[in-house]
């Protein structure tokens, strides 16, 4: 008998009597003011919320806050003068010198500040991790209250890879001192478009 059969047989023999799945509909029904909560939570987890009117506002902010001459990549259209758009077929290792990666998010989650991004947005899975800084565009109407509504929105989407990103990468492994910028980005800017 293979290990697979052995393990499955032992589990079938030892698992307890059927126990029903609980109802999830009672969870996370307190929503409150979504944009306000999202912005406050994002600040708490080390993110930087910037409210903008339109794409021009995003461009102005990037020009002002990120040094010229450094590599910026994006999968958004309309950023040709500012960012590379033809990088998706490069080996991911060549993104090592990217200073800023700019993407849009499907939605954000007010209770924890998380943004949901999938492979079709990211083009390369490594991109939001290997860049020194990350910026994400979020429409103000795309904020949900809790993770339950988040998964309702995701539904049965057949992404190959998806990720909730909540803040910049961080660690407190050395004596519980919080340090921003562990292995991934050292900063996360979220452009909230009203």
């Amino acid at each position, binding site marked *: 008998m293979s290990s697979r059969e052995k393990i499955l047989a032992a589990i079938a023999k030892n698992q307890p009597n059927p126990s029903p799945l609980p109802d999830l509909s009672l969870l996370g029904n307190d929503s409150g003011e979504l944009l306000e909560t999202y912005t406050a939570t994002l600040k708490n987890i080390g993110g930087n919320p910037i409210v903008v009117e339109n794409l021009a506002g995003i461009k102005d902010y990037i020009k002002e806050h990120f040094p010229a001459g450094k590599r910026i990549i994006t999968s958004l259209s309309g950023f040709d003068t500012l960012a590379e758009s033809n990088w998706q077929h490069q080996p991911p290792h060549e993104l090592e010198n990217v200073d800023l990666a700019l993407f849009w998010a499907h939605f954000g989650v007010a209770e924890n500040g998380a943004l949901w991004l999938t492979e079709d947005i990211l083009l390369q*899975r*490594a991109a939001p991790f290997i860049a020194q800084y990350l910026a994400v565009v979020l429409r103000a109407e795309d904020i949900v209250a*809790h*993770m339950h509504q988040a998964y309702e929105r995701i539904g049965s989407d057949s992404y190959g890879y998806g990720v*909730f990103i909540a803040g910049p990468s961080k660690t407190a492994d*050395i004596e*519980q001192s919080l340090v921003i910028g562990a292995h991934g980005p050292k900063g996360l800017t979220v452009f909230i478009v009203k």
Partner: protein
Amino acid sequence: MKPATLGHSAAAEIFNRDENRVDWHDKTLWFIREKRDRAAYQTNDWELLRETASQIKNNVLSNLHNYLLAFEAKAIENGITVHWAADGAEHNRIVHGIIKKHGVTRMVKSKSMLTEECHLNDFLAKNGVEVIDTDLGERIVQLAQEPPSHIVLPCIHKKKEEIGELFHRHMGIPAGISDPQYLTNAARLDLREKFLTRKVALTGVNFAVAETGEFVVCTNEGNADMGAHLADVHIACMGFEKIIPERKHLGVFLRLLTRSATGQPITAYSSHFRKPRPGQEMHIVIVDNGRSAQLGRENYRNSLKCIRCGACMNTCPVYRRSGGHSYHFPVPGPIGAILSPNFDMAKNADLPFASTLCGSCTNVCPVKIDIHDQLYKWRQDIVNQGHATAAKKAGMSAMTFVLSRPKVFSYGGKIGRWAMQWLPFLTNNSLNPWYKQREMPAPPKQSFREWYQQNRKNK
């Protein structure tokens, strides 16, 4: 890795020799427990969330066979290769086989308590494969040649000066640096080179979804993703209890996990791997290693509900004052003390006794495992099966003798109170374990029985 030879109380005694350090360890963990409390109180439906998570996990345990089959079928359909390992040795052989097939001798690994349980790093080192742990805390203990002392905070026992010294020796930074910001950046630069050059990356699994065949890995540092997305081969290792039924159930567990662990609302990254990226090879190794036997033990099967948040460690008065290494098992603290006898009851017979049975672990557990009840049950099983130490057995028979004879009990109490008052050296000496790190209390003048007879009996 150091051989585990000392029992919990002997190892704890060594840990307690440095009083300032024990106080620091105790306070650091309590600080994390307080952060967990704040996060829980800010979540309006917290108790319903715990109850729901507990019920989902009960359902998982009762239907594991079918969920595993569904998960396997979906994962294969998604292009992932699925392996099954009956024990740690088979797990290690499978992982090594994949690495060998690719002709590679170096790899990166993010946090996986399962690979600690299977002693994968030692096995691969013996077979000429260099493993770099990429979680900062795990990298630190790896450089110190120690096992992690906590499942979420692997180097919680280390001082920043010691970490500076390790990085000075292994990463070539100047001597005498202890600034966490500087040290973290040094590790970032050092490990970036590893991420960019290793062709195989291994990760753990936090949750595996039967409905979709995807698995979720949670990190704050981004190290699991840096490893997996830059490697040609991604190997994910999971104990079979990591299964959850449907994608929507992730909403429940992701709300609970990090709030319980560190008080954060969610980890910086919750990565959902459903398919390998184009050109990449992805493997999942599903491991039993004693879990199916544990599933059959009615009193103890609930321990398989654990989502590895570490809240029970942070709250435990014994863990906080004895340190993770004193548990001589990869998962320390209260949850480790109920998991470990499943693996080896004789070797881990001391661990269920490393508790005050105060019940705090049960109260903070996000999936409502009856941890302190299981500790109590293990104690009985361990003694009944003859695994208690001779001293413990002698003590317990003396106790039984006294407690079943009221006259002996009453007389013994009198002698004890008299002796503590007039011959204090009888108790205040190093032979009495209750005197260690403590002053003995002043003896009461009379017992409750004497007081009751004087004051209440005839009223």
